[in-house]
């Protein structure tokens, strides 16, 4: 009797393995609908490190559920391995039964905590089959534990009626729970995340992000037909795989500024929309939809994504702030997805909403976002007697001012920056009318052709002149030059002004003799393209510390900072929502109790200063440094 039960379990294990293989084959077939992509098989070797280091970074922000996950998933993996060895290979070693029992107990405890959370789940979590999952896991763990206990007790236990009844119950639990584990992967149950997640780690589309930072957009080959992603099948296969890794935890939803503003974008629903597009017929999505939009799971792999699984407004709501990417425990790249879809619209249909089309036309005709004369970019500098770099001239520091040069508010910051750099004895020059737009806006709005033209233009200009370093106060320009121009042959030593100012202060190059003005508390607003995109969290804080300013941090600061609403051209596409993102950010600032907020980006300064009504004062980093120099900023 006992022996036959052993065999039965072996049969179950083999059956499970077969079903798992079949499910995996099905998923593989779905992923392979995508385009070929070069992947490094060495990713498989890197997987454990990526799992235990990179993912741990993210999930450790929520320790309770992380512990529960370790117990549940660790227990389950250990159980499956032990069963595979002990029963798959028909070894039947009691010692492994003991191990399996211990793992099942741990898994049960973990799943119990998961269940507890599911009883009053945060709004960001999906419901549906995800609410069933803890119970399936509990059944599985309980079933395994019971069976192992019975095996360990031996024939004595099973010879009793009670024991046999228990064994039958345990078997049913094991089968039901095990079905969730093995079938879920193939037919898109919640457990699909386990294998897809691991495979995603191995074949991640941005392997550079492990142990580093990879935030620059990938160049689009403009000679290949299609241009961007219209249908699910236009994605590379490992991008489709990445969507399958989603656990619908909604951490992206919780941090998305557009979602919070009631604009029609929910990053979780976006990713699930992609799943629906390449694997139609899966379980109904049971999470929050894109605000104001019906959630449709009726996708088809060869149908246009826009218009079937999501509306174009969803794409144009994104500020490309990367808060979602930063929050995602499965390391999914939402922003790349948005940009790929935008590229198709912008390059094939030119249907960029709001002022986006106008901005792109301006860039096409004037090389400026606002449609200005190029020389007007430096009108603010004519009375500063600052050199304009010409052929044959040499400068140590080239200051690129970006579109902020046209903004009268921001010109104050630029004048302050020039004043500070000069007081530090730096040899600084401008590019004059030769400075053209870096292409950030064009690229984020999907106009990759416009971006590549602008990048080539600016790179050619910069290559004509002799200078040692570039400094810019515009994080978007900084990001383009630093992270995206190398792909087009532009390699420059580029610094954000916060980094330069921090260095100047650290080495005592500035004599900060004037008293600081203001008083009252001060907070710092991290620009997305300096912070999350480039890890520039410390330099601006060092500057503020250096000039004697104590910063009261907002809860949403550094990696968790909330976008001002400008990025990704969102200020241009201007998709309506229930609130405005900068208003929400100003509320964050108010809640900190600060009377002043320091910014380090021309766009943040424009967005926050445009908040109407009484509000904390917005001051640019360089302005405050200049204030401490005891010199009039002309």
């Amino acid at each position, binding site marked *: 009797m006992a022996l036959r039960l052993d065999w039965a379990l072996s049969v179950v294990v083999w059956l499970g393995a077969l079903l798992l293989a079949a499910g995996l084959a099905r998923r593989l077939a779905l992923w392979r609908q995508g385009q070929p992509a070069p992947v490094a098989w060495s990713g498989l070797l890197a997987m454990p490190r990526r799992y235990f280091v990179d993912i741990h970074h993210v999930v450790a922000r929520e320790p309770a559920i992380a512990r529960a996950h370790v117990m549940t998933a660790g227990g389950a993996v250990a159980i499956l391995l032990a069963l595979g060895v002990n029963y798959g290979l028909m070894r039947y070693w009691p010692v492994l039964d003991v191990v399996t029992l211990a793992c099942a107990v741990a898994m049960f405890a973990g799943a119990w905590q998961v269940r507890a959370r599911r009883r009053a789940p945060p709004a960001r979590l999906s419901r549906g089959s995800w609410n069933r999952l803890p119970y399936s896991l509990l059944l599985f763990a309980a079933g395994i534990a019971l069976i192992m206990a019975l095996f360990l007790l031996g024939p004595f236990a099973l010879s009793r009626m009670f024991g046999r009844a228990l064994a039958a119950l345990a078997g049913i639990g094991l089968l039901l729970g095990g079905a969730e584990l093995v079938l879920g992967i193939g037919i898109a149950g919640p457990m699909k995340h386990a294998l897809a997640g691991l495979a995603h780690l191995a074949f991640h589309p941005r392997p550079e992000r492990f142990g580093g930072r990879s935030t620059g957009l990938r160049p689009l080959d403009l000679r290949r037909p299609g241009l961007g992603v219209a249908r699910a099948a236009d994605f590379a296969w490992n991008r489709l795989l990445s969507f399958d890794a989603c656990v619908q935890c909604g951490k992206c939803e919780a941090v998305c500024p557009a979602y919070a503003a009631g604009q029609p974008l929910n990053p979780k629903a976006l990713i699930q929309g992609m799943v629906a597009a390449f694997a139609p017929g899966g379980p109904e999505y049971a999470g929050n939809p894109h605000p104001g939009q019906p959630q449709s799971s009726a996708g088809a792999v060869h149908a246009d994504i826009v218009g079937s699984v999501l509306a174009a407004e969803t794409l144009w709501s994104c500020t490309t702030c990367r808060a979602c990417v930063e929050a995602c425990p499965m390391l999914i790249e939402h922003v790349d997805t948005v940009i790929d879809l935008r590229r198709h619209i912008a390059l094939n249909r030119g249907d960029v909403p709001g002022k986006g089309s106008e901005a792109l036309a301006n860039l096409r005709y004037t090389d400026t976002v*606002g449609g*200005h004369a190029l020389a*007007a970019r430096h*009108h*603010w500098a*004519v*009375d*500063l007697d600052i050199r304009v770099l010409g052929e044959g001239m040499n400068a140590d520091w080239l200051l690129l001012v970006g579109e902020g040069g*046209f*903004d*009268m*508010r921001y*010109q*104050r910051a630029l004048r302050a920056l020039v004043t500070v750099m000069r007081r530090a004895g730096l040899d600084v020059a401008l590019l004059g009318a030769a400075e053209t737009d870096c292409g950030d806006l064009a690229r984020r709005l999907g106009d990759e052709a416009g971006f590549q033209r602008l990048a080539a233009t600016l790179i050619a200009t910069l290559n004509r002149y002799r200078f040692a370093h570039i400094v810019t106060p515009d994080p978007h320009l900084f990001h383009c030059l630093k992270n995206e121009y190398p792909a087009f042959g532009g390699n420059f030593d580029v610094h954000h002004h916060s980094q330069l100012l921090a260095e100047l202060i650290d080495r005592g190059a500035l004599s900060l003799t004037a008293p600081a003005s203001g008083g009252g508390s001060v907070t710092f607003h991290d620009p997305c393209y300096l912070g999350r995109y480039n890890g520039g969290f410390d330099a601006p804080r060092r500057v503020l510390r250096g000039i004697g300013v104590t910063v009261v941090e907002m809860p949403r600061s550094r990696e968790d900072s909330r976008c001002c609403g400008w990025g990704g051209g969102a200020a241009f596409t201007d998709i309506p929502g229930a609130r405005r993102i900068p208003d929400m950010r100003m509320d964050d600032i108010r809640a900190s109790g600060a009377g002043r907020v320091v910014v380090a980006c021309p766009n943040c300064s424009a967005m926050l*200063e445009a908040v109407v009504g009484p509000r904390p004062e917005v001051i640019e980093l360089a302005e405050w440094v200049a204030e401490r120099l005891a010199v*009039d900023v*002309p």
Partner: protein
Amino acid sequence: MRYPHLFAPITLNRLTLRNRVVSTAHAEVYAEPGGLPGERYIRYYEEKAKGGLGLAICGGSSPVSADSPQGWWKSVNLATDRVIDPLALLAETMHKHGARIMIQATHMGRRNSYYGEHWPHLVSPSGIREPVHRGNAKAIEREEIRRIVADFASAARRVQRAGMDGIEISAAHQQLIDQFWSPRTNFRSDEYGGSLPNRMRFGIEVLTAVREAVGEDFCVGLRMCGDEFHEDGLSHQVLQEIAAAMSGSGLIDYLSVVGSGADTHNTLANCMPPMALPPEPFVHLAAGIKSVSSVPVMHAQSIRDPVQAERILASGLVDMVGMTRAHIADPHFMIKVRDGREDQIRQCVGANYCIDRQYHGQDVLCIQNAATSRESTMPHVIVPSTGPVRRVVVVGAGPAGLEAARVARLRGHEVVLFERDDHVGGQVALAAKAPQREQMAGIVRWLDMETIRLGVDRRLGVAARVDTILDEQPDIVVLATGGQPNVGYPAWGVAEGLAVCARDVLAGRVEPGANVLVYDGISGHAGFGVADYLASRGSLVEIATPDVKIADDVGGTTFPVFYRRLYAQGMIPTPNVWLERVYAENGKIIAVLRNEYTEQLEERAVDLVVIENGIVPADELYWQLKARSRNLGQTDIDALYAARPQPCLSESLSTDEFLLFRVGDCVSMHNVHGALYDALRLVKDF
């Protein structure tokens, strides 16, 4: 981008201006004896440079020759080498702030007064007398022409040596050059008269000599008139011909155009258009000149608002805008525009207090900005006090009280402002009720907005009493309670209702009668204003005054505007009489007037007698509070006049002690400027 045209640099010859806004040449009346710019002069201009202005052209009508006296207006004397060092300091100061500085040079010819300085014999093309300055002159001879042309060249060399950015030659307002141009003043039959080329000869000789003196690269401008508005004067068409010739000569780098001649009181009043005229009344003349000019054109006349300036530039009417009075009212105009603080600009209202003082040979002061030209002692930007935060109670929200509250708040104090009325403004709010004087309200509007912006605790509609004030536990009480009409003379019968005061009429508390006598004992703006108010509502108005003429004390650019209305409205001016008494008889009111010089009595039977006789201080609160205050209500005038803090401010007060001060009309009757200055100089050190 906001104001893309206003902030677009422009290059004149080699001179690049950071924006299109210019403080054009005007007589400042600040030069030190001998016609040298001193500290006051330089700081007055420096403030504009700090404030973001592109170009200042200083030294309105700075003479190049000794027979063009400068003493009347204390202008800069370009006829001496001693001017070089002070001009060099001025230029250096302006450049430090990124602004450019030029100076105007001229020979005024007959537009001057001979009785002073060297007692010169003034020169003019044909020796025609100039009426405004009583400028008797002789006909200029060829030798004198050559001397003066050489003087222009010497002056230009001095300007260039000082490091100034350029020189502007004046041929506007009937200076010697345009006296040659104008058929009103040039009846010569030699090569300097007759045909237009002959009449332009002197000007071309001057410009040629100046250009030779300074070389190719130095900015030389020419200021000219766009239409003299005289039947026998220069018409716009002729001036277009002149402008085409001058700009086509290659000798100048820009033209600056003003509308109106200036050799009569009435035309001169147009030159600095007062508030009665519409905005930018003569920009069409500048645009007409621009249409024939081959060099950029500048224009200044009632351009006071940044949006207006941007519109004028954007529509291509001119290339540069002069905003001269705008900068007298607020030298920080441009940085406020640049930084999006337009609402904080103290906007010129065209009250012409500045130019009306200059007309009398007094230094230019701004009616609404007491810091202007007092930069050495009075701050344009009030910095917070480093001392204790005080509780300051201000009573009265007229100009003095509003300014006291504003400045005290900027010093960082807690400020409570009581005002009996439900609105702010005091007497200025009434002054704005007179026809074509509406813009006076702009003075109050700025103070109103600033006190709100700064968070002054304003209690409008609250008549403060002693206990109201003491309940606030003040450290300092500033009384700015103004005054009551000075109509208590019993024979006038105001108490009996036989006569009313001007204030009641302007406030709408009195119905206009059909036949009205306005008696003006002051000859300021109020008396004529109330007469005009009544005439505009259909009253037949006689305005009587003991002064030598109606509205005698309003200044040279204001009385012509009043007189235009006086005659157009059919008002009857009766100067040189005193109001003896008023009584009622047969349903009519009889006013008895006594002639100052004959002592003869005259009677008027009218429906209404309106009296404007200034004010007596409203000082009840002062007398009630005086004994309780630590300083017994006394202001240390030595400290006040020296712009030092009041000594009592450094004494420590016990909790129920307070300091008491008075500012403005509640001490004795002053004007708007006096009220603001009282408040600023006292409160800046709180």
